[in-house]
């Protein structure tokens, strides 16, 4: 996937408040909760994280055909991701270069030409301004009015990322060990490809967006927040009932802000992560054996998918892919879609869909409760605010590749997020 360096578009806010002292708010073992509520911090995050670093946009499978497009947000910037006639993927700001209207206000569709509904300016799929009504009245050079693109677009394993910063690092540098996590996701498909066309469910949280990665890679809360789930459902999470010494799951800080819960240490049988016996999905296993051989297939179907967060907005949530959308300091939305596997039997993907509904989304058996917890933290983070304690595991975490690993209940993962966040927000990174 080539980078696009033309029409570099870096958002610069002239009146930015640069007085935030992140080093005083983010310590190794605690962070200040005002980072969730302060509107200056929110705007600063848009600039430094969403407009100057790599951010996930969408997946190649969402725009298979020429003219297919999807509309998303990168921070507060509305964007379009589309497939050109030549088969390339482009990303544009969803903003007409005439008077700034939204070009598309539908989430997805197909178009041969991008036409603005305000004055009828028309753009090609390649982003060029190709037409307008009453053209004699416009005397500037049309070549200067093509749709704006981020400085960099790149993809890994079908996951498309953009970076508005022309001087940023390469995507592979940003991802680092997270590339293995994407490989693991793709490796569950007999063809090595996933399909994210199963529909997007959107759950609104009256909380800051940073609560979403905090919650999704926190292993300590599950016994409490999800106690009702453990009582009503039989699942792979039954391991939560074990004593602290017996728990085998781990949390991992991969570095670069990428963090994970690793549940696979507890799995000894295939498909524990899907809650099904191997005999019931033998057709899927046969396809996987044909693609990868029996031994490798067995390894993969025991290990299962990752439960990992890729900084800043992508969550590989077991059999789901989720995107975190920041809306305002106290408002965020988690999108999720089931991890459908290309080449897998339809009945297998149906199981994935059912599990997706159970785990994530507004009525999920898990996430509905996480949202309310996040909302309560947000209320408590207001007023005089306070410190969030993140010391668990400092004395027992150990090296893991270029990162750290610790007991499932430790805050190694949370610290990994905050240290990378601090480095980005102070400009060290």
């Amino acid at each position, binding site marked *: 996937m080539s980078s696009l360096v033309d029409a570099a578009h870096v958002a610069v806010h002239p009146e930015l408040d640069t007085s935030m002292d992140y080093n005083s708010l983010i310590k190794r073992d605690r962070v200040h909760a005002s980072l969730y509520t302060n509107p200056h911090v929110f705007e600063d995050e848009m600039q430094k994280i969403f407009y100057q670093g790599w951010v996930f946009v969408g997946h190649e499978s969402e725009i298979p055909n020429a003219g297919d497009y999807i509309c998303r947000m990168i921070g507060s910037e509305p964007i379009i991701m589309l497939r050109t006639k030549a088969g390339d993927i482009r990303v544009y700001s969803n903003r007409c270069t005439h008077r700034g209207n939204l070009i598309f206000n539908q*989430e997805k569709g197909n178009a041969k030409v991008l036409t603005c509904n305000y004055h009828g300016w028309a753009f090609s799929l390649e982003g060029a301004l190709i037409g307008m009504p009453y053209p004699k009245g416009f005397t500037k050079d049309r070549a200067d009015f093509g749709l704006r693109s981020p400085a960099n677009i790149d993809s890994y394993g079908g996951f498309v990322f953009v970076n508005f910063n022309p001087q940023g690092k390469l995507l592979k540098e940003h991802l680092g060990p997270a590339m293995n996590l994407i490989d693991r996701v793709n490796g569950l498909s007999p063809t090595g490809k996933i399909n994210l066309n*199963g*529909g*997007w*469910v*959107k*759950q*609104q*949280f*009256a909380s800051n967006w940073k609560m979403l990665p905090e919650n999704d890679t926190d292993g300590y809360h599950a016994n409490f*927040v999800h*106690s*009702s*789930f453990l*009582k*009503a*459902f039989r699942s792979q999470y039954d391991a939560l009932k074990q004593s602290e010494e017996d728990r085998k799951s781990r949390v991992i800080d991969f570095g670069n802000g990428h963090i994970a819960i690793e549940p696979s240490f507890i799995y000894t049988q295939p498909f524990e992560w899907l809650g099904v016996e191997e005999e019931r999905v033998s057709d899927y296993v046969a396809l996987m054996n044909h693609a990868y051989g029996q031994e490798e297939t067995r390894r993969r179907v025991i290990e299962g998918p990752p439960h990992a967060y890729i900084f800043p907005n992508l969550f590989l949530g077991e059999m789901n892919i989720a995107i975190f959308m920041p809306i305002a300091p106290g408002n965020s*939305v988690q999108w999720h*879609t*089931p991890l459908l596997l290309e080449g897998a039997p*339809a*009945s297998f*993907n*149906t199981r994935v*869909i*059912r599990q*997706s*509904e*159970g785990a994530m*989304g*507004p*009525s999920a*058996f898990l996430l*509905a*409760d996480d*949202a*309310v*917890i996040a*909302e*309560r933290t947000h*209320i408590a983070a207001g007023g005089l605010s306070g410190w969030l304690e993140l010391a668990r595991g400092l004395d027992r975490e150990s090296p893991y590749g270029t990162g750290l690993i610790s007991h499932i209940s430790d805050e190694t993962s949370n610290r990994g997020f905050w240290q990378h966040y601090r480095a980005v927000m102070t400009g060290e990174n």
Partner: protein
Amino acid sequence: MQKNMIPEAIAPADTAQDIGLVTEQERSEIVQFLYLEARLADESRYEEWETLLTDDMVYWIPLGNGDYDPQHRVSITYDNRRRLKNRIKQLMTGERYAQVPVSPMRRLLSNIEIYPNSDETRQVYCNFVLHEYRLQSTNELCTWAGQMQYKLQRVEGKLKISYKKVTLINSTGPVPSLAFIL
């Protein structure tokens, strides 16, 4: 694998003149039943609400209008009877924090259309507006609106729900925690 349990929908554009009406008495009975179901759901009386369901009931909250096969696309909720039973069990633990305390709620039902199906069951469409006071976290008054579609049948003479599809008008957009029974 569960089979697709969506009953044939009667297009609402088909008028009563083509299909026929139920008797006034039956209409009155069904409307009363819908109000009872609404009241039990509003008051979070889950176990009593569950007694109004058939053994094979399907409860569906789709994305959008739900004009797709839920075996192939995700929904907000798609519970067969067994999963719905576990959902209620989870609520009954008293530890489902998304509904601790339960949200005070009242829903209004309107535009109630009742059609007889060829198999003696009844197809019901109605609009609803539900006001929910989110006491668990935000303490805000939240509005839910949309359409309910029911299939009703008689079990030993008593009305039961074998299918309930709830299409929220905003289901394709961000929806907050929805741990109660719509």
